[in-house]
């Protein structure tokens, strides 16, 4: 009887105090949330931001894109390139060990890249490495690549998310039991629930990481994430939902950390599909869209209007071009010239479950109305979106993460042979091709800057699609968390982080 009462009381107090009780954990444990389930822990196959979070905690690349967006050594402590920009030699850091205790060797790098190149792997990074003619391990700590054509940004490619170096003898179990060289070791993964990671005691950067344990909780509901952050159940909300920013700011126990990125959303018009095959129509759409208003609607102002994937924070950004203010009258005129005096009706597809893109779609619908374009918004499940919409439909909303270099951010979309271009909006202008090819081999920053300035002007003039903004990457965290900096590539860098 006593016992039963005791238990009852315990349960009651547990329920009432759980908010604070939740915080009782190992001192060095950081609880992070991501907003969507992870499909895989195999870096080569990763496609979503929440997966890259895991990739950067568990793995390393040969190089890494730093917080300043420049390339830095990672597993490779240094590298050389031939003058023709076609032979690249990387020297690996000595004594780096995988989580299973084996030392990293050059053969692992070769195997990793070969695997990415294999079509059956289905890695989205494959196109990046198509440029590789051959590769070989010169010795256990040296690996050399021969390129098909000169490429100045090859080292940056190893900072790409999928190009994480994996142990060549454990590739088959990467998806569920990943082994890397990163600051944290994999402990467990419960799909839909959480990933548990622990400190890698053999991590090659001395004194890092500071945390003992990282728990990545999967919490798709933004309200649940924020509530958990306020109750202390979470220490950090990665990619904080925009609508929660004010609330987190208002809470003295919480703080916001944000950074501009070159991650963008776009209004995609298929240049081969009527009526968007007419540049005047595309131009009219671009004219009618007030980018400032769209940034407000879709991002609640947490982003910056831009012309192309080159962010306004970047030195190459074309400051002389004007951001479109929304001119429905002008758009109407252009439409009339193109043969649509009464406008037209069109279906705009948006991927379901991506809130900003859905808001962008609805904003486009409203802003095009005064220009005489009737837009029907159709939400599509993401798998259907990938299969039937992307690259096929005439009019849809899409978006892309920041790339490590300006070249990788622009070339694939705007060059007529660019990998994304052919499958996105099929834009083709020889002038643009010349500009982009030139920029690839530019010998100086100034030359590159001048070329990219022209690229932006042409992108606005031709409007293969409308890129209204680049997004700020925002994290919400507890005031107890120290040493955290949001990364412009949206990586979750926890090496320096500690918690009270």
């Amino acid at each position, binding site marked *: 009887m006593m016992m039963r009462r005791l238990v009852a009381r315990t349960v009651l107090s547990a329920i009432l105090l759980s908010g604070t009780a939740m915080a009782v954990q190992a001192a060095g444990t950081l609880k992070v949330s991501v907003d969507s389930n992870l499909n895989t822990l195999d870096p080569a196959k990763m496609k979503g931001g929440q997966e890259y979070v895991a990739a950067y905690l568990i793995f390393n690349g040969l190089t890494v894109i730093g917080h300043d967006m420049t390339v830095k050594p990672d597993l490779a402590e240094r590298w050389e390139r031939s003058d023709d920009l076609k032979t690249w030699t990387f020297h690996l850091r000595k004594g780096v060990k995988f989580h299973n205790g084996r030392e990293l060797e050059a053969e692992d790098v070769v195997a990793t890249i070969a695997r990415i190149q294999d079509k059956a792997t289905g890695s989205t990074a494959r196109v990046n490495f198509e440029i590789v003619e051959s590769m070989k391990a010169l010795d256990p700590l040296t690996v050399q690549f021969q390129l098909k054509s000169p490429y100045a940004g090859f080292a940056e490619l190893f900072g790409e998310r999928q190009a994480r170096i994996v142990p060549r003898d454990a590739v088959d179990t990467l998806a569920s039991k990943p082994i890397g060289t990163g600051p944290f070791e994999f402990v467990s993964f419960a799909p839909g629930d959480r990933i548990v990671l622990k400190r890698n005691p053999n991590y090659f950067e001395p004194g890092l990481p500071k945390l003992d344990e990282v728990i990545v909780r999967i919490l798709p509901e933004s309200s649940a994430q924020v509530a958990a952050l306020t109750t202390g159940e979470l220490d950090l909300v990665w990619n904080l939902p925009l609508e929660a920013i004010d609330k987190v700011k208002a809470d003295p126990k919480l703080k916001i950390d944000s950074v501009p990125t070159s991650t963008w959303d776009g209004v995609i018009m298929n240049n081969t599909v009527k009526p968007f095959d007419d540049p005047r129509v595309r131009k009219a759409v671009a004219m009618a869209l007030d980018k400032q208003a769209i940034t407000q609607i879709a991002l609640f102002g947490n982003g910056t209007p831009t012309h192309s994937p080159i962010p306004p924070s970047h030195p190459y950004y074309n400051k002389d071009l004007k951001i479109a203010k929304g001119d429905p009258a002008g758009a109407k005129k252009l439409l009339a010239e193109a043969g649509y005096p009464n406008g037209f009706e069109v279906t705009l597809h948006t991927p379901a479950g991506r809130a900003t893109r859905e808001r962008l779609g*609805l*904003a486009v*619908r409203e802003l095009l109305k005064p220009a005489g374009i009737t837009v029907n918004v159709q939400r*599509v*499940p993401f798998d259907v979106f990938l299969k039937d919409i992307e690259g096929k439909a005439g009019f849809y909303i899409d978006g892309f993460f920041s790339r490590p270099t300006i070249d990788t951010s622009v070339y694939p979309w705007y060059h007529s042979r660019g990998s994304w271009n052919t499958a996105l909006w099929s834009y083709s202008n020889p002038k643009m091709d010349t500009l982009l090819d030139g920029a690839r081999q530019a010998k100086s920053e100034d030359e590159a800057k001048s070329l990219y300035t022209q690229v932006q002007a042409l992108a606005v003039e031709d409007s293969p699609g409308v890129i209204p903004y680049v997004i700020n990457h925002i994290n919400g965290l507890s005031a107890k968390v120290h040493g955290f900096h949001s990364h412009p590539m949206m990586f979750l860098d926890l090496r320096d982080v500690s918690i009270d």
Partner: protein
Amino acid sequence: MTDATPVQSAPSRGLLARLPSLPVSLIIGIVLLAPLVVAAVAGGSLAPYPYDEMNIMSRLQPPGADFWFGTDEFGRDVFSRTLVGTGSSLVMGVAATALSLLAGVPLGLIAGYKGGRVGEAIMRAMDVLMSFPPILLGILVLAVTPPAQWKAIVAIGIVYVPQVVRLTRAITLELMQEEFITAARLRGESAAYILFHEILPNIWPPLAVEASLRVVFAILLGASLSFIGMGAQPPSSDWGLMISEARPFVEQAPWIALCPGFALATAVIGINLLGDGLRALLDPRNTGAH
């Protein structure tokens, strides 16, 4: 047995004249539903603003003089949206129920009347359908094609076919035992005549009650499907979709969710009461007393 005071027949008197003796729940139900039906029919013209008109300057406004129930994250008027959404939500319930009745009643009649292999086949098919949990069946149907509201209606309709078939069959079987059916067989009536002239009229009262409950379930299931993105599509102001879209803002702007939530509750309570009232009205045991 020998009942000397014949009970006045329920259907033989005018509805209006019997108003005082109607079940209270029926009257309350009608009172609750009437404005919703008006909204469903004339929603757009009654709304103070177009349901999809955005206004960035006045987003997330609390309820006030300009916007009676506030605005959402696009600055759209929540009241107007709720009003216009009435049609979508009610149509979803009514159309899906109608569909399940349309498919279920004939199947149930045949299964009950024919019995044997045909009946067995129908019932086993229904068993298979019924072994899917309702929302799962809805999701499955919708997963085959891109979501749209009419597909949600079809999905919900299909989900409820087995229940309608089972009920119809059960009543039919019961009626088949009735002697007036035997009498019809004895005078040489055709199966069609017996089904449609003898059995069907007696099935309607329980079916009407069942249908009113089905409408409730259909509305809620429809809202649930819209909620998980498989029903009505934005910028439609279906209530379930509205509540779903309001989730991220529920703390800053609870009115976006509350307004359609209350509308939904009113509709469901209204129909429930209507069903209860109907049951009381049509139940032969309750002639007179309720």
